[in-house]
């Protein structure tokens, strides 16, 4: 190490180290450096530069750090390592594979370990897809290797500027990720060796595609409340805020399992380790119904749980998004589940407070809004250079303080997302799961995707809107009943209310722990919803409220039993028949 380079620690408070930079050493914002604490290099990132002093957030526990400790700067921004072999991995917030780390006493994370994100020994079957002499740009494919069920495209590094000529390309064969597979030359005659691995600074969006296009295709989650009432688009964004105990976690787990997408990236950001453990232990056992392979093969887990260092929590979301963008470049459908963005925002708040910045609302830094927007804006459906499309969908959960949606993280997120699934304590207290409150939730994609949704059935979107309206009406009547009592409303209103209750109980509520109920295919959604709407359209005539209640309770029970039956099984047909007899001819 050059003697004039680097710096030394002059102050420490929590995970924030203030470092005096040696004269002649150039530093840049968000540059990575290493603080040598008791001889162990601890990865850190520059988050503020003031004169010859820089503030660095240390991605590790700072116990034992002393004034005078040496600091080396890397000259690089915090980057993700991209290449074949990412799928199926469990990383920490800095993309260290957790399985490869040495553990203290066999169990505990030891600081200062930085392990290669990709397996260096493993060989991949490379097939070139380009010829010598071709002219290429960043993001163009050079060849491919099979990774799980996908062709992992090896591309010109996304950070390359300008046009390059392929001087050399390897023939088909087995190579490790660090072997040269191509040689490129730019217009100035500079040659670069290309391997299967590249680095990308996580905080900068990847823009190597032709254009972003409007998301108009549905991303099927197999959750009826979302797919029917408030659908999500491929390349869209959604936010799930909710008080604790309202079922955010289960909702996320269900989506991560049953969403019809190519790749799922789960960012466990400042949440419980136990939740990640369930995913880590269960996914390898679960079968992806679409491919018949283990669910883990389509999943990457970035895991920086609440007791892991706070600064790495801030990095974890960016790492996840960068990996997602990389796979989007291959024309795949990627879904990112970030749980929870509030913990990420709190990490920002903690470092902001330690830097003694002027606080904004609820002590969050003033740049909270722009940071949130910047993350969600990286989602999108894009047309790649080869005319195929790839999508990155982001669903972020928010954990608002006190369950109050007026707080800054929720509000700033709502400004930038396309769908809002607000969880309510009332619904979860009543055991109505998923506890997404239909009265406050919304999706901009219902209108945006009207054409493609109407392919489900003629006039589908109108039917959905009718169901929404009926549900709202039912809820109003229910409110009224609480004030004037059941005797204060007409039989007709009571029937509307009871119909809305049926929609709620058999369509919106979905049992996440029942083998049949937990995921509803598109085909079944269409069939069952149309039957339900026939019930809604049916003109029931009752003389008394007692009769209405009795008959509608019976109807509700039939639908209820139906939803637990395997689609089109004998039992299913039996209950369906019973319902159809009551409803009569269509």
């Amino acid at each position, binding site marked *: 190490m050059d003697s004039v380079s680097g710096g030394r620690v002059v102050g420490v408070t929590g995970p924030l180290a203030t470092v005096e930079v040696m004269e002649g050493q150039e530093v840049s914002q968000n540059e990575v450096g290493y603080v040598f604490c008791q001889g162990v290099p601890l990865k850190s990132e520059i988050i503020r530069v003031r004169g010859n002093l820089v503030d660095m957030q240390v991605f590790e526990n700072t116990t034992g750090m002393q004034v005078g400790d040496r600091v080396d700067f890397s000259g690089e921004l915090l980057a993700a390592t991209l290449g074949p072999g990412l799928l199926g991995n469990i990383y920490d917030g800095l993309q260290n594979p957790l399985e490869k780390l040495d553990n203290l006493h066999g*169990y505990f994370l030891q600081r200062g370990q930085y392990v290669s994100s990709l397996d260096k020994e493993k060989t991949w079957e490379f097939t070139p897809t380009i010829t010598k002499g071709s002219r290429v740009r960043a993001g163009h494919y050079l060849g491919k290797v099979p990774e799980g069920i996908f062709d992992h495209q090896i591309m010109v590094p996304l950070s390359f500027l300008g046009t390059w000529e392929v001087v050399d390309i390897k023939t088909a064969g087995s190579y490790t990720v660090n072997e040269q597979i191509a040689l490129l030359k730019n217009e100035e005659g500079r040659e670069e060796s290309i391997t299967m691995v590249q680095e990308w600074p996580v905080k900068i969006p990847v823009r190597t595609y032709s254009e972003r296009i409007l998301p108009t295709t549905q991303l099927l989650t197999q959750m009826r409340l979302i797919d029917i009432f408030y659908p999500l688009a491929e390349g869209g964004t959604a936010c799930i805020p909710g008080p604790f105990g309202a079922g955010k976690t289960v909702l996320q787990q269900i989506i991560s399992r049953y969403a019809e997408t190519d790749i799922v990236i789960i960012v466990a950001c400042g949440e419980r380790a136990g939740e990640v453990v369930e995913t880590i232990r269960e996914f390898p056992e679960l079968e992806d119904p679409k491919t018949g392979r283990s669910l883990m093969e389509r999943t990457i887990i970035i895991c920086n749980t609440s007791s892991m260092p706070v600064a790495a929590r801030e990095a974890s979301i960016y790492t996840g998004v960068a990996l997602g963008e990389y796979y989007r470049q291959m024309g795949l459908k990627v879904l990112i589940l970030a749980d929870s963005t509030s913990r990420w925002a709190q990490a920002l708040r903690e470092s902001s407070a330690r830097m003694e910045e002027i606080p904004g609302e609820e002590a969050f830094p003033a740049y909270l809004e722009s940071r949130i927007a910047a993350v969600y804006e990286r989602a999108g459906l894009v047309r790649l250079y080869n005319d195929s499309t790839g999508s990155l969908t982001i669903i972020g959960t928010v954990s608002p303080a006190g369950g109050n949606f007026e707080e800054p993280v929720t509000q700033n997120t709502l400004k930038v997302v396309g769908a809002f699934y607000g969880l309510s304590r009332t619904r979860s207290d009543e055991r109505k799961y998923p506890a997404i409150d239909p009265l406050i939730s919304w999706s901009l994609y219902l209108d945006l995707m009207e054409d493609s949704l109407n392919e489900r059935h003629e006039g589908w979107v109108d039917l959905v809107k009718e169901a929404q309206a009926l549900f709202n009406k039912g809820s109003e009547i229910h409110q009224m009943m609480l004030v004037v009592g059941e005797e204060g409303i007409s039989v007709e209103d009571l029937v509307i209310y009871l119909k809305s209750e049926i929609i709620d109980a058999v369509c919106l509520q979905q049992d996440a722990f029942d083998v049949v109920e937990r995921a509803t295919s598109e085909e079944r959604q269409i069939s069952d919803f149309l039957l339900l709407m026939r019930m809604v359209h049916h003109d029931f005539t009752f003389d008394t409220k007692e009769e209405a209640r009795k008959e509608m309770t019976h109807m509700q029970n039939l639908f209820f039993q139906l939803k637990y039956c395997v689609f089109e099984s004998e039992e299913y047909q039996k209950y369906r028949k019973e319902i159809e007899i009551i409803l009569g001819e269509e």
Partner: protein
Amino acid sequence: MIIEHTRITAIQGDIITVPAKEIGYGELAAVKSRRGTSLAQVIRLRGDDVLLQVFAGSKGVATGDQVRFLGHPMQVAFGDALLGRIFNGSGDPIDGGSELVALPRIDIGGPSVNPIKRVIPRGFIETRVPMVDVFNPLVESQKLPIFAAAGEPYNELLARIGVRAEADVVILGGIGLKYDEYLKFRRTFEEAGVLSRTIMFVHTASDPVVERLLVPDMALAVAEHFGVQGKRVLVLLSDMTAFADAMKEIAISMDQVPSNLGYPGSLYSDLASRYEKAVDFDGAGSITILAVTTMPGDDVTHPVPDNTGYITEGQFYLKQGAIEPFGSLSRLKQLIIGSVTREDHGYIMNSMIRLFARSREVEQKLAMGFDKTADDDRYLEYAKLFYERFMDLRVDIGLNDALDLGWKTMAECFRPDEVGIKQEFIDQYWPKGH
């Protein structure tokens, strides 16, 4: 090399500033004042200034007092000899027994467990409290708080579970505990004959505030070492709000920008790093944490219960001497319900709560003076039975008996098609003759 410093340049709250070199962040020091010697911990380095929080408080600390840096962070003695012993907030015995000088000392507040070294918990801990066992069962390695307003019998509930739960080691961490409460815990454990498996770290309300911060870390560090040795450890903490308040005090003394009601922005991370010590080790023991969080003003949106709720795997609400069915939640229950416990458990749990919610609605409706319908009477009857048979804290009944009682209670009030349960379970379990 141990260097002594005799110049304190600033005293603010319980934080003192000492100019010193080559001191590590988090290191421990002994501050000798006319009131005796207290430990202190480095909480900030600023150039050549070292900021220390003094565990016994800064009262009577003089600018010329001696500060001796010890060269290591806070530690606690560890070994089987701890069993049956009682310690104060700085880890010294207060039961009149011998000092534990021969035991090895371990660092407190260590790093977190590598998530891949955890396993999915599957152990059911029966408490014979039906509101817990039936509706929100406790699972080994779970972290669960009891949310309660002042005056609720939370410590009794905690002690009762501590006595009955199947655990190899029970560790009580008392934080700001009233002295009488401490004596009550001690008596309960003694009477039940479980003192020999119990270790108590007790900080009472009159002890120095900063020592509160150490209690959970000491209790959990000891628990962790027992856990790695293969023991199943239950940690009881009371009261974590007192812990958070101590943190607030320190943060304010440090001139930190408060985020909410004066609590530091790091409150979530600070609480999480303690609660996350709950773990089921792959191939070793486990740590289960049951902690009391008192709610100032009975307000669950207060920052302490609010942040806690997001960290823990559920919560129990203790209200008017009973565990509330609404809002109380055990997140891990799905891992054992119907698989470790009886197959009808899940259906009983959901239906009974749904019906009870409806009963509450009926009660409200009637309270507003509306006419009663025939249905309403059945719901009222159900609510009454539910309270007597399940909610009353005095009820002492095993899980399977409680499930049978659940079917019986529903059958006494409702028809099978009103309870929303899959037909095959109705056929199998619905009591005959109803």
